[in-house]
């Protein structure tokens, strides 16, 4: 079936695929995950704060992001970021920030909405009885949070946060629509240059599968380790 | 398909219950079941012979053997984890077992040729947590298996189901859903659901353990009624009052073994094993 396919094209392009493409993908994933978790924590705390206005603002942001396709958000920020940059710096013309910076901003802001939901659910999943028990022992609000609620919530959330990061890793392939050279972008460029679509896309699928499957397997192992027995 | 010696009850089989009974409320409206017919084949309704079962390396049943005669009521008791629930679930093959054989009304449970759904349709079972189907109305709970398993017409199934619902005193609740009934009421519906299939034997797996204390009585009343009507029953329960009232025999299990298998009077009079004595003193102490 594969007799007229030439898989040597893969070997020839390995340095480009990994040295450039995969490095880009991993960098974008790591930075956006970090930024997303930080901003997501902020959003979750805003949503749980109970302060009128703040709660609603965070909710609106999260719901809006979650109702839009990532591709549309990528386009939005690609065109919006230069204007935001101009506004921040007081420049009269849109600032050219580059596609990577634009992608990083996009993924950070987009994934933050998803991370925030995981955090919120994680904190709310700790039964009210636990807070009540801690209060009954004389703990203050912050002691209750720090000593009782968060340690349990974090254990519950950690696997979900990591799984969401794997999703983010897969989602970064969509920077293809900005013609960036992430792993998929690199594979696609080689594929089109050499006319080897079958070989390159199959190889890309295989690499993504290997990475994500291994990572999810590690997350599952971690999950059984940190799980709290009830 | 026809490996069972007795034909499955066909739609419209005349029984005492299917006849036009007065539509009185209450438990005493009439017999819950047809008294068992004379044995078609010699021997017991249930014969358990040398049954052993493992979960992986863990042995949960060890060489269990006993018989339940037609019309007999046998109570199975023992501490939790003794294997009594597992044993009763082996009778209708809800739990597979590795060694031994169980024969129900002439049909071997562990036999490649046995049509298990057909066998199970003739063995009624009542569960600890009722297990009514929450998405179906009480009427549908009573009729769905009659229609889909026995192939009865909707009208026949409905008639039989509502008749039995009446016998357990709940005909006012026919249109409700399980979540709208109390635990005791749900368990009575569950008994009616099992009886609607015209079973030749009824298995009860701790039918009152999940009930609030004030609801235990109404369920036991139905079971006592059923026993007095001559139904063959195997009952896993801690209700020793029930055992004293209607049991013919009591089986005591511990650590997967049948430790004691005696008539009611012998068991309550003087259990032979020390383990059974201890169990009885604990359970009767409070």
């Amino acid at each position, binding site marked *: 079936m594969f007799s007229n396919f030439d898989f040597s094209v893969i070997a020839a392009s390995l340095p480009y695929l990994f040295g450039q493409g995969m490095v880009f993908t991993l960098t974008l994933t790591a930075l956006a995950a970090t930024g997303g978790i930080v901003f997501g924590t902020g959003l979750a705390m805003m949503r749980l704060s109970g302060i009128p206005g703040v709660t609603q603002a965070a909710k609106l942001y999260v719901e809006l992001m979650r109702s*839009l396709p*990532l591709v549309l958000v990528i386009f*939005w920020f690609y065109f919006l970021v230069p204007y935001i940059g101009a506004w921040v710096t007081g420049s009269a013309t849109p600032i050219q920030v580059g596609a990577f910076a634009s992608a990083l901003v996009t993924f950070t802001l987009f994934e933050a909405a998803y991370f925030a939901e995981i955090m919120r659910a994680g904190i709310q999943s700790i039964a009210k009885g636990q807070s009540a028990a801690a209060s009954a022992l004389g703990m203050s609000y912050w002691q209750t949070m720090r000593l009782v609620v968060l340690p349990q919530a974090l254990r519950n959330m950690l696997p979900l946060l990591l799984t969401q990061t794997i999703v983010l890793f897969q989602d970064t392939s969509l920077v293809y629509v900005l013609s960036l050279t992430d792993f998929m972008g690199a594979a696609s460029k080689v594929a089109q240059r050499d006319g080897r679509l*079958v070989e390159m896309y199959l190889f890309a*699928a295989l690499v993504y599968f290997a990475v994500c499957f291994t990572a999810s397997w590690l997350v599952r192992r971690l999950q059984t380790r940190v799980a709290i027995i009830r | 398909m026809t490996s069972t010696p007795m034909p499955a009850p066909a739609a419209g089989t005349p029984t005492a219950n299917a006849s036009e009974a007065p539509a009185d409320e209450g438990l005493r409206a009439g017999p819950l079941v047809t008294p068992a017919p004379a044995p078609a084949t010699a021997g017991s309704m249930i014969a358990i012979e040398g049954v052993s079962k493992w979960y992986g390396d863990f042995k949960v049943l060890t060489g269990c053997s006993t018989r339940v005669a037609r019309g007999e009521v046998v109570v199975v008791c023992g501490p939790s984890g003794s294997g009594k629930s597992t044993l009763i679930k082996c009778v209708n093959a*809800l739990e597979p077992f590795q060694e031994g054989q169980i024969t129900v009304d002439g049909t071997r449970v562990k036999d490649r040729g046995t049509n298990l759904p057909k066998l*199970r349709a003739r063995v009624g079972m009542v569960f600890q*947590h009722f297990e009514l189907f*929450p998405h179906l109305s009480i009427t549908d709970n009573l009729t769905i298996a009659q229609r*889909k398993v026995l192939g009865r017409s909707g009208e026949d199934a409905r008639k039989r189901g509502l008749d039995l619902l009446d016998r357990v005193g709940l005909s006012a609740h026919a249109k409700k859903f399980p979540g709208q009934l109390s635990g005791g009421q749900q368990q009575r519906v569950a008994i009616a659901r099992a009886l609607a299939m015209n079973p030749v034997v009824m298995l009860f797996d701790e039918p009152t353990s999940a009930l609030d204390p004030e609801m235990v009585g109404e369920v036991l009343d139905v079971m006592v009624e059923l026993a007095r009507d001559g139904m063959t029953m195997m009952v896993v329960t801690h209700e020793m009052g029930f055992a004293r009232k209607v049991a013919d025999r009591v089986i005591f299990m511990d650590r997967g073994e049948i430790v004691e298998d005696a008539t009611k009077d012998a068991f309550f009079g003087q259990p032979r094993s020390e383990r059974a004595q201890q169990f009885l003193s604990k359970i009767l102490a409070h």
Partner: protein
Amino acid sequence: MNYTWNWGIFLEPSPEGVGTYADMLLSGLSWTIATALCSWVIAFGLGSVIGVLRTLPSKTANAVGTAYVELFRNVPLLVQMFLWYFVLPEVLPTEIGTAVKQLPDAPFYTAVLCLGFFTASRVAEQVRAGIQSLPRGQRLAGTALGFTVAQTYRYVLLPNAYRIILPPLTSEFLNNLKNTSVALTIGLLELTARARSMQEFSFQVFEAFTAATILYVLINLVVIAGATLLERAVAVPGGR
């Protein structure tokens, strides 16, 4: 900011020759909805089968179900889209491959298949979780009444499981809808693609994207309202 807003742009004729920019976006919206609905049919049907496989008392069935879910969950959707669109016709026998490539609306059929199979793996996980969340006694009770395995699923387990997983299934439906935008990479002229081409032709970036955003938010609201009605319609009296 020196951006010139022009909200009247939607009423101006699009460079396609027929209709306005608004018509262009609405045509994109209808492709988005058509793709989402058609792929959901596959996703729901296939996902239910795979989810059931993972709960059957058979090692082979479990393995098949697990393999499917792992395969479709661990490859990015974009890559799957390319596999269906560029790779599949090449590895099929030549005549079939050529026929597939010449199919009118090939991006639509490809997107429907790709999203259907992709979302099926997510539906399968929900169905499995729903079935496994039911008390074990429900299966036993069905079995004890003489139901076959298929009957137990049909009459007892699935009706209850679907009710439980209705909220997460709604999310998956919305995810599937949003994921249709990935099909713009294979040339499907869905909503995001149309907003993008409107931006390219008219240079009114933010009007185009704002309109698309509002349309997506509206579909989300409609779907959520529909799901709420459905939940109410199938709610069991006295249920949780």
